[in-house]
């Protein structure tokens, strides 16, 4: 892909802080589970009731979809990035629909740190910033727990020094 186009979604200086590649593992595990459950389950049902060719098409299209999502997940995870600056936090993500969010530290109302059961097993944590606006979607998934805790503490401290209310 032409990389100069994506300069729009680059920080003005320095590089994006990437998220852990284990996030791809986690998401691929979930995708595999769905693939096994839906595609295979549905096909077995179809073959069992005698729609053999339909079952074959279902399995094949399901597998193609699964392989595509496998590849897409890798790219999507690599597309995540964040950068802490002196006054604000930058978060970017997405391939087809790319976005960049700039959240000034003074506008942060709370910082969410969360990890699901699979995330915990793989050592992953999501840090999400909330402002008074419901639309400012600044979530950073796939952080190492230590990095997440550090980020949370730095954000909380920055929020305190810059805070100015609504």
């Amino acid at each position, binding site marked *: 892909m032409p990389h100069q186009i994506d300069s729009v979604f680059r920080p003005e200086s320095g590089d994006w802080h990437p998220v852990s590649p284990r996030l791809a593992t986690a998401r691929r595990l979930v995708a595999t589970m769905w693939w096994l459950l839906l595609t295979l389950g549905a096909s077995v049902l179809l073959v069992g009731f005698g729609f053999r060719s339909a079952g074959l098409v279902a399995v094949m299209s399901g597998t193609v979809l699964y392989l595509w999502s496998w590849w897409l997940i890798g790219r999507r995870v690599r597309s995540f990035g964040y950068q802490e600056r002196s*006054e604000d936090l930058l978060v970017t993500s997405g391939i087809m629909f790319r976005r960049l969010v700039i959240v*000034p530290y003074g506008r942060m109302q709370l910082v969410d740190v969360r990890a699901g059961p699979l995330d915990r097993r793989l050592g992953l944590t999501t840090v999400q910033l909330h402002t008074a606006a419901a*639309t400012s979607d600044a979530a950073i998934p796939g952080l190492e727990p230590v990095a997440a805790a550090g980020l949370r503490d730095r954000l909380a401290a920055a929020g305190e020094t810059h805070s100015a209310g*609504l």
Partner: protein
Amino acid sequence: MSREGCADRAEVPPGPDGGPRPTRTHPLTPLVRGVQFGPAGFGMGLAWVGSAASESPAVVAVGVAAGVMFAVAAAAVGWLVWSRFTYWFDSDGDLRVASGILQRRERRLQVSRLQSVDLTQPLLARPFGLASLKVEVAGAGESHVRIEYLRLPEAEALRSAILRRSESADSSDGALVPEPATLARVDDSELVLSLLLRTSTAALVVLSVVILGGTAISSGFSAVPLAVVSGGVPVVSVVLDYAKFHGFTISGASDVLLIRRGLGTTVLDTVPVGRIHAVGFTESWLWRRMGWVRVELDVAGASGGDDRLGTTMLLPVTSWSVALDLVSLVLPGFDLSNAALDPVPRRARWRAPLQWAHLGLADDESFAIGRRGRITRRLVVVPHGRIQSVRVSRGPLQRALRLASLHLDLVPGPVRFLVPHMDDVRARTAAGRLADRAVLARRTESSGGRGRPDASRGPGDG
């Protein structure tokens, strides 16, 4: 809470220094209240008599006597409730209401915290020419009181007296000042016409006419029910909005705007100017010929499902000059004539063939201004200090055309700031610049520049 001091006083003190004395409601009140139970009681009595007909006459007589005694007792209680209910204005100008037969209760409704005064005429009160008044003040829990029933002219007089007192109390913490100046008023005929000329209303009415006309030729009157629905929906919404915005009047001092509106029930909304986060001007397609515009606000803490939290409508319809005058009061320093909107590149027409020529962004030291929409045109103004976060987004088609959309995230409300399909590099530069300005504006504000410390504190502040 201090706004409704409850006291177990046996006697209601008269207004001091010859002030207004406690007043009772209309003497027919217990009757009107009782009438609604009449049919049920009568029916129950009849049913009992029917089932007891086979019993000896003595049993029936005792039953009827018990029923009559019960009715008399109920009437006596009703009369007592009425006779012990009084209201008056105290020396502070606040409304007091005393009630209760054994347990006396006296409530003080601070009119400076007035939320609304609703005047209603229930069906049963109408033949007597009586009305009920519901007074609501800001606050959680049981923050309203019902004064019923009064003669209609009396109720109207009391309502305007309460509204008058609340206006004079509101502008400066209780001190009596002359009536705040009326800033803008929505003309009734203009309101009706503007509601009819809304794009959706006009389109639905035209659609109904087309349906009727088209099917009348081919199949007679079979489409009448459909046309009634497609034509009736806009009529209902026009009527509802007319009742909501009838007599829309804005008055107020520098830090609070008072909006009085409503047909039948008069609603008094207060808009704290310091909590306004964005102003949106909306021009419907058919309004442009008339030079009309609607002005809406994002107000911190005003949106969240509950209509009582606050209003976001600044003016349902007005001319551009009135709108701009009022907004320059609300956002000091705002001047649209100085704003030079930066248009989007010509190639954006492939992505947005209709609206591309109307898209644009402008920002100076204080405000970001965005314009979008072709059929319904929208212009949104956000003071930099109110920006919560800045977002740039780009979809696949935008990427092929080297375009990107710029969003400013704001507190929840009807106004959204969005400039779609800008040149992507310019969108990115603007995002960085606006984020810097958001930080800078906030800093100058909190160091005493344009800050309004008390009014700008929100409920969600950490």
